[in-house]
């Protein structure tokens, strides 16, 4: 493999981090709605 054609580890790591971020943001939103912090009718 040449210097100008690096393998794609960076993108792999980015995707993995987005995975955790999406999991945490999604679950936090679920909990906020279920506990009433985000009240019914707030989301347009």
């Amino acid at each position, binding site marked *: 493999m040449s210097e100008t054609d*690096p*393998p794609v580890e960076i993108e792999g790591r980015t*995707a993995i981090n987005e*995975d955790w*971020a999406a*999991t945490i*943001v999604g679950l936090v939103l*679920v909990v906020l*709605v279920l506990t009433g912090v985000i009240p*019914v009718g707030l989301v347009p």
Partner: protein
Amino acid sequence: MSTEERKDVPVGTPAEPGPGPVWALLGVLVVLLLAAATRYLDQNVPALLKGTALENVGAAIEYPVYAIVIGLIGNAVLTAAGVRERLSGGFRTEFFIKTGLVLLGASINLRVIVTAAGPAIIQAVVLITTVFLFTWWLGGRLGLEDKLRALLSAAVSICGVSAAIAAAGAVQAKREQLAYSASLVIAFALPSIFILPWLAGVFGLSDEVAGAWIGGNIDTTAAVTAAGAIVGDDALAVASIVKVTQNALIGIVTIALTAYFAFRVERRADAARPGLGEFWRRFPKFVLGFVAASVIATWWLTTVSAADGKATIGEINDLRIWFLILAFVSIGLEFRVASLREAGWRPVGVFAAATVVNVVVALGLALLLFSGFSVA
């Protein structure tokens, strides 16, 4: 539609060195504004067109259609203005779609996930194996380079861009091979969002079978969700369970590819055997979030009245639709045709043939495994 030359960087990945966080934030703002326009059209067009000749058309168009079309228009405008590349750090399709799927988990009863998991796993294993081996074989017949073969096979058989990214890491592929595979995935997924729901109607498939078919053969998770949402909520539920199951199998395929390339193709004597650690590293963690959201919501619904439960889950569904709209707008904004022209007709031919095999085998499996299945 973009025709910019950027063949050495994967789709959906900001340019390196990046244009900076301010541009990425502006990109997110653009996505949010276009999503707000999508939500407005989705909620108001049916009422605005009521009583006109276009009434039926207005009522039939679902939000993924508005979102993708608005994203493509935004793509053309931003490209013409010369700022699309700099804003692209904010077009986070993967993050938006995965958050949307975790939220979707809250509206699917755990019982549905558990009962659908069996057929979904059988479908995923048969489909991934058949389509992967067919694509690998055809790519070999047409003389494609091994790494590109591996990328295309993973992309078409598992779940599009994220599988291509995982496979690229496993086989140490070049950046332009990943960019090319990702472009092919997007180019084939975009029309299938509209064609498959239409064909499902022509074939008279039930919502559950249509969902299993869509989830089994459309490559990108975002496009599966868009097509499922066009068919309906039950189809979306089954399509997402089938797709999430495929996502969960990425780890196994990347381990197999890592081992195959290390020991058979490159014959590296020093290569370490990939193990459980590698499987966990490649495992898409949002799958856990999807199941966890279903577990939490299923339990929570047993503690409140049916009316309260319905209103609260409805609020989570609204949030989910917002995140899916953000993802679909990003699909439109990210779409590019330039890198497709670079590599000639053979990879396109391999991908097209594999897609046809995928569509046919997935339809057979969906009919076989999901005909008696009901979300209700």
